[in-house]
């Protein structure tokens, strides 16, 4: 029963921080495991509907994008990378931003983790890591949907080196975006975040068309470079469906790395601002 006899020893900051980091990751994964059903539902709802309507219903009723035959095949293949990229951004919002809005809200649930022996920026990095892991899992869930639902065959030509480097980068960018949003938005602003950020980002993210084909609308082509999702979609496009035109690979790496640094910095700064005064 005694409190004093076995008091905590002071451990080196480094190993205490690493343990705290793993503890938090374990916590997030436990929460994820216990709500796996909800995770799958929230992950597949949007892409399932989208893929179903555009690549199954439309070709069957002879209407819509790409028409029938070769055009339809092209469109259903074109969609795969976009759908995977959107899944990464959605995870960033759903696995990082929305929980953070609550944890920073009136419950201040984040406090116990902030009081753990690791620097405040470490807690923020943990959030990005756990969001990225959930983003990767979401991509794995969404990928077969986009591949097997379409009525017309999907043609993939996977470049594994690119896929395995773009995937962690893209999921981390999605999670960093979630952190940046989650540390700045108030609970009552959540609906606004969806209309002002999530919807434009997904529709103008080179997800449903290759970025290079925006040539006829030059202003849009250059404006969307400010959208991190463009690099994620283009990355998955070169890695999965290189038959379509895409941005130079180096530009994609650069864009994703740049946004990771920028959004990560924005998120960590926002995080610090919310917990320290």
């Amino acid at each position: 029963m005694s409190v004093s006899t076995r008091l905590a020893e002071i451990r080196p900051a480094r190993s205490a921080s690493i343990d705290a980091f793993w503890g938090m990751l374990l916590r997030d994964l436990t929460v994820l495991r216990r709500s796996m059903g909800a995770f799958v539902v929230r992950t597949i709802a949007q892409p399932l509907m989208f893929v179903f309507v555009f690549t199954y219903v439309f070709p069957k009723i002879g209407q819509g994008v790409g028409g029938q035959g070769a055009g339809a095949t092209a469109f259903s293949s074109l969609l795969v990378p976009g759908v995977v990229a959107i899944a990464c951004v959605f995870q960033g919002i759903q696995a990082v931003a929305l929980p953070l809005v609550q944890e920073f809200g009136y419950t201040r649930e984040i406090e116990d983790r902030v009081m753990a022996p690791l620097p405040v920026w470490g807690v923020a990095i943990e959030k990005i890591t756990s969001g990225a892991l959930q983003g990767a899992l979401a991509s794995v869930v969404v990928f077969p949907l986009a591949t097997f639902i379409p009525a017309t065959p999907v043609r993939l030509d996977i470049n594994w080196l690119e896929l395995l480097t773009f995937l962690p980068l893209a999921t981390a960018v999605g999670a960093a975006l979630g952190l940046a949003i989650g540390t700045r938005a108030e609970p009552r602003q959540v609906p606004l975040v969806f209309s002002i950020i999530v919807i434009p980002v997904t529709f103008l993210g080179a997800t449903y068309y290759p970025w290079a084909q925006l040539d006829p609308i030059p202003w849009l082509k250059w404006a969307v470079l400010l959208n991190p999702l463009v690099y994620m979609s283009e990355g998955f496009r070169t890695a999965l469906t290189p038959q379509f035109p895409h941005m130079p690979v180096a530009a994609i790496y650069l864009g994703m790395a740049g946004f990771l640094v920028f959004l990560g910095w924005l998120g960590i700064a926002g995080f610090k601002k919310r917990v320290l005064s």
Partner: protein
Amino acid sequence: MAVETAEAPASRPIENAVIQTRALTKVFAGSIRAVDGLDLSVSEGEIFGLLGPNGAGKTTTVGMLTTRVLPTSGDALVAGMNVVENPNAAKQLIGVVSQSNTLDRSLSVWDNLYFHGRYFGMSAPDARGRASELLERFRLSDRAAAEIDALSGGMAQRVMLARSIVHRPRILFLDEPTAGLDPQSRLALWDVLSELHSAGQTILLTTHYMEEAEQLCHRVAIMDHGKLLALDSPTRLKESVGADTEVRVAADGDLEKLADCLRSFEGATHTAVVDESVRVYLRGSAGVLPRVVDHAEGAGFTVKDLSLSEPTLESVFINLTGRDLRE
């Protein structure tokens, strides 16, 4: 109404203090001096109280000692370490219960304790054992699997307390541990705190309930507007009032005049007008009430209500500030 306790014990640092502040100051954006040149030391095994009204700077003081608020100037030390320079080591040594329920809503009661242990580097079996042991000890075992939102306020507070000591901190910070609790839950929490104290736990708690400070704390620092007004044991603080009896008189009419009039009452040391009544401080309580009524009514006042008590820590606060703790 100068009070001698203000200087002497406050500025005398304790050797081997486990908590120490030196001229600790926090100025928030704008120019709110939330904490203003605070000097405190708390020794090992002590239950130390920070008593003050809303906005006195209690939470800000605890925030600076627990690394979440950065001091504008001055030092905050735990176990001799500056918390700004050594936040990691400081966090390992302290346990914190905040003013509001910050339990992790995504986890069960048991999980809250378990993962807290993991954050502090405990192995899975250690954290498991410790979580179950503490729930048992705080009589919460039957709630182990409960969701946080299903707990009553008193239970949530006990879970917070249990969580804060999972990693066996040397120093425990409790910010208004019983605010908003019903009297029964408050007593239950006091019991738990006494138990922790007898096991050797150092505790710094903040409160604006004078009873809590009187009942639990060895020493109490009275704060107002970020400044330390007095610091001593509850008994010595009450002695500083210089009276053994406090009579409250509620009456119609000009209370300032009534206070003047009662100052000449036999045995009265001083009076104060607070909260729609006059407080008369006196030595000797035998047969005082009827004589106070006579005295007041002799001067043309109609007494509406009257009560008598020993001086409390609130009397001390009134003496120091002319206001009561609730204002």
